[in-house]
């Protein structure tokens, strides 16, 4: 008999009562698997301009990997040992590549008006990622544990106080800057990058302007 089989509740017509079913149906509608992991792209995607975003993601992966190693081993390691200095440099240069290719990606999306046809939120999330990344890089300079970090903090404090944020964003407070740099801001960047990529997967790459006459 079928006594060992689980008893399933029969589906009910109309809006499902189960929230898990509603979420699953919404995901299936909005992000089918052939959109999530496509094996083919439209012809117009065949340009090196579309590679800039992927290189930015690759640089971010190296930033995270090297950053995890640095935070685990600590400042003495990244200043005094040769392997630590290598990881310190890896972190620094992958951040340089991250910013360079993020800006090249921004230029590409700006000139192809990547916000068209319901992609405004994708564009705006990219803008927010850019802003948080700058803040993350700034707190990174303050977290180096060297004279450069002290010099930058002492000079930046007046700008922060002058802009009115000094009361809750104290660049002389190393613990606060380090916590922001290794925890809250990277989580923000990584989370928004995942949302950004999923939104691109949902809607696909924007069509070139000349395929539709005048851009909307």
């Amino acid at each position, binding site marked *: 008999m079928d006594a060992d089989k689980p008893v399933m509740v029969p589906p009910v017509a109309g809006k499902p009562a189960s929230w898990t079913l509603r979420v699953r149906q919404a995901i299936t509608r909005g992000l089918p698997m052939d959109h999530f992991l496509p094996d*083919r*792209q439209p012809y117009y995607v065949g*340009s*090196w301009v579309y590679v*800039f975003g992927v290189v930015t993601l690759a640089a971010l992966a190296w930033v995270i990997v090297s950053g995890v190693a640095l935070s685990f081993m600590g400042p003495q390691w990244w200043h005094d040992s040769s392997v630590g200095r290598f990881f310190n440099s890896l972190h620094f240069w992958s951040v340089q590549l991250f910013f*360079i290719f993020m800006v*090249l990606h921004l230029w590409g999306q700006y000139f192809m008006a990547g916000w068209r046809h319901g992609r405004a939120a994708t564009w705006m999330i990219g803008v927010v990622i850019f802003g948080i990344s700058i803040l993350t890089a700034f707190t990174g300079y303050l977290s180096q544990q060297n004279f450069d970090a002290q010099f930058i903090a002492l000079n930046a404090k007046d700008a922060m106080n002058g802009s009115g944020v000094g009361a809750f964003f104290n660049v002389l407070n190393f613990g606060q800057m380090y916590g922001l740099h290794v925890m809250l801001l990277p989580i923000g960047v990584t989370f928004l990058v995942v949302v950004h990529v999923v939104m691109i997967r949902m809607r696909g790459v924007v069509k070139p302007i000349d395929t539709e006459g005048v851009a909307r």
Partner: protein
Amino acid sequence: MDSPASYFHWGFILISMPNLLVIAGMIVLFATALIVPFPHGKEGADGRR
């Protein structure tokens, strides 16, 4: 490496040479990406590659 960077000064524009070189390199890379042809795979029946 320990000496201060030299600066490019033209009218109201004042920028260090390292920053100027990075920006110039980015512009060259962007233009190259537009010009250099991208290797295409075989076209499918739906016109996608």
